[in-house]
């Protein structure tokens, strides 16, 4: 961090200024002139929070993708299918048992097992053949998408959030000040706050595991040099299996999350595959902090675009990606190899 500041003083200044302006926009009541220019503060705050929550969801999907790619160079274009499968399974579990929380471990294990099967039966046979992996996973995603359509049909499902998370929660952020002096605080759905917190906790836990445990050390060593790790006596295939199962399970759990605060329908798999592609391209391949940053940027740009320029919100995402590609092809936090 300090290295970045000393190397790029101008950029640090610009970023610091942007963060300061953002914080000011969030925490102070807006003057009337600003409200006239870009609308009510409540709309802006909702867009910001919606963007952060969407970013959290994107992070859950994309972190598994980037971890798998970073460690094994495995290109899993069936990642979106794992997301959708997890969502449907979670829907079934929570419908049958009535427990939303129970769906998470069940889906994590089931989709994780499927991930292990994929790694063991598909990817291990074509290590290093990226193009073939791409083709096979594309074929798999076509197949899985059609089987899911077969089982669950074309209608869209929404997973009901549990009672203790339904309804709004009040945040200590001022939305508007009424003329009589009453201060109105921002209300936001509790389930989305829970999702946001869960994503932060998972991200932090991943960072802890990667940086503070021996398993994390193995994974980081594998990211840097797979062959040397294998040569020093580690059974890399087991590490690969664990990481693949974890990434797949994460995508499955993200499916429950996405099914709770959005909906599940055919086509969501490609949407989330593309979202994770864009997120990891922007953030940098194989980097967990990069995935977090990219997910935040893409989520914010999508919702802010939806609020302030509804027609072209998708194009903003694309423009960000193109700009990153043009000026920093390895991604914002990616490393050149």
């Amino acid at each position: 961090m300090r290295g970045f500041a000393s190397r790029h003083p101008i950029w640090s200044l610009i970023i610091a200024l942007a963060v300061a302006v953002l914080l000011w926009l969030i925490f102070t009541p807006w003057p009337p002139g600003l409200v006239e220019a870009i609308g009510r503060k409540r709309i802006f705050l909702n867009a910001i929070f919606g963007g952060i929550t969407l970013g959290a969801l994107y992070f859950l999907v994309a972190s598994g993708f980037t971890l798998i790619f970073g460690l094994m160079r495995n290109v899993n274009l069936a990642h979106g299918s794992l997301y959708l499968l997890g969502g449907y399974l979670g829907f079934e579990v929570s419908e049958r048992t009535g427990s939303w929380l129970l769906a998470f471990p069940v889906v994590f294990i089931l989709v994780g097992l499927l991930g292990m099967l994929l790694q063991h039966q598909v990817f291990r046979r074509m290590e290093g053949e990226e193009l073939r992996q791409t083709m096979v996973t594309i074929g798999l995603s076509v197949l899985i998408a059609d089987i899911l359509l077969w089982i669950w049909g074309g209608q869209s499902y929404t997973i009901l959030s549990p009672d203790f998370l339904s309804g709004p929660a009040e945040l200590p952020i001022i939305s508007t000040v009424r003329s009589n002096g009453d201060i109105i605080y921002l209300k936001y759905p509790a389930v989305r706050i829970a999702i946001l917190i869960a994503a932060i906790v998972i991200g932090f836990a991943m960072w802890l595991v990667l940086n503070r445990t021996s398993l994390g050390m193995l994974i980081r060593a594998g990211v840097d040099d797979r062959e040397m790790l294998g040569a020093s006596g580690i059974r890399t295939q087991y590490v690969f299996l664990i990481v693949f199962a974890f990434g797949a399970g994460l995508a499955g759990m993200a499916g429950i999350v996405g099914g709770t605060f959005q909906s599940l329908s055919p086509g969501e798999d490609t949407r989330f595959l593309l979202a994770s592609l864009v997120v990891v391209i922007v953030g940098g391949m194989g980097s967990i902090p990069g995935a977090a940053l990219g997910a935040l940027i893409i989520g914010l740009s999508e919702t802010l675009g939806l609020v302030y320029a509804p027609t072209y919100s998708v194009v903003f995402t694309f423009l960000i990606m193109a700009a990153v590609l043009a000026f920093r092809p390895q991604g914002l936090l990616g490393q050149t190899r």
Partner: protein
Amino acid sequence: MALVDRASVSAAQSSPSGIWIDKVPTYYWVIGLIMLFMPVIANDFWLFQVFGWTFILGMIALSLMFLAGYGGMVSLIQMSVAAVGGYMVAIFGTSGITDLSLGLPWWLYVPIAIIVAMIFGTIVGALAVRTEGIYTIMITLAIAAAFFYFARQNYHIFNGYTGFNLVVPPQLFGVDWRQPMPFYYLTLAFALLSYFVVVYVSRTPFGLALQGVRDNPRRMAALGFNVTAHRVLAYTFASVIAAVGGILLVWQNAQISPGTAGIPAVIDILVIAVIGGIRKPIGPFIGAFIYVLLRTFSPDVLTAFGMSGERFKTLIGLGFLVLVFFSPDGVLGLWERWQNRRKRDPLMGSGETPGDRDVGGRNV
């Protein structure tokens, strides 16, 4: 190796070649004649729906094959480039949406459509060549998705979700080109043209340099070739073929909508190119024929086996999966492998490859 090459070149030059027709292999004649007289044996449905569609999809997949096979860049943008060409025909030509279509004559809107699609493909290519391998696939896929969503959202140019309908080819020389037989010959002519242009370009200095860039970009850069320029130019060239395919596609369907360039369609082009074989220009057409046959007849076959006709995607996905799992080079790869196996000596085990025979023969 260099000796052999020089020897083969001098042999080719010194051999008393007759007229060029003599050099055309027999199976070219057979296939050409079958194609030429197809309207005699095939009915309208086969001509228009099966063969017309095969040639069009084959051309779009051919542009992908050119990039992937000769340039080493697997680009998923080709369907979007084709759709841009189709959209431009609808926008600058005539369509059912009279508010948005400009109604220019055909000799104006066809070149405009090709040029606009070419520019689009070149810009995407310029972005995509900054990356390599799997990154190219991801980036072109993401841009293709962005184009799909953009076209779906934009009502001022692309007419949003509905797109354009009643886009028909011009009545040239008093022929209705949308009738099955004229359309068959129209698509056949352009498919043949694009096939031979690709074969020709692959042998020009540009094509050879492109293949050099595919095999070893650093060495080519060290030799003084501009690697990036070659790659971007390859995108430009491929975009022209894809654009022609897109224009024919919009004429065949008489309509274009964002779904034409949706993610499934984009993936289908890759599937077609891979099924056929991505190393030779004939591969995409074989792949397109297989795909169109499956797409057209698999509902009937599935129903005959007592399954729901909607499951044809499962069939295609499963077939594709099995094929890429066992033969990365598609049907052509299977064919070559089968031929090699047939040549193999049952006692000695080792097969005589054609390359060995050539070297031996010329060195003597």
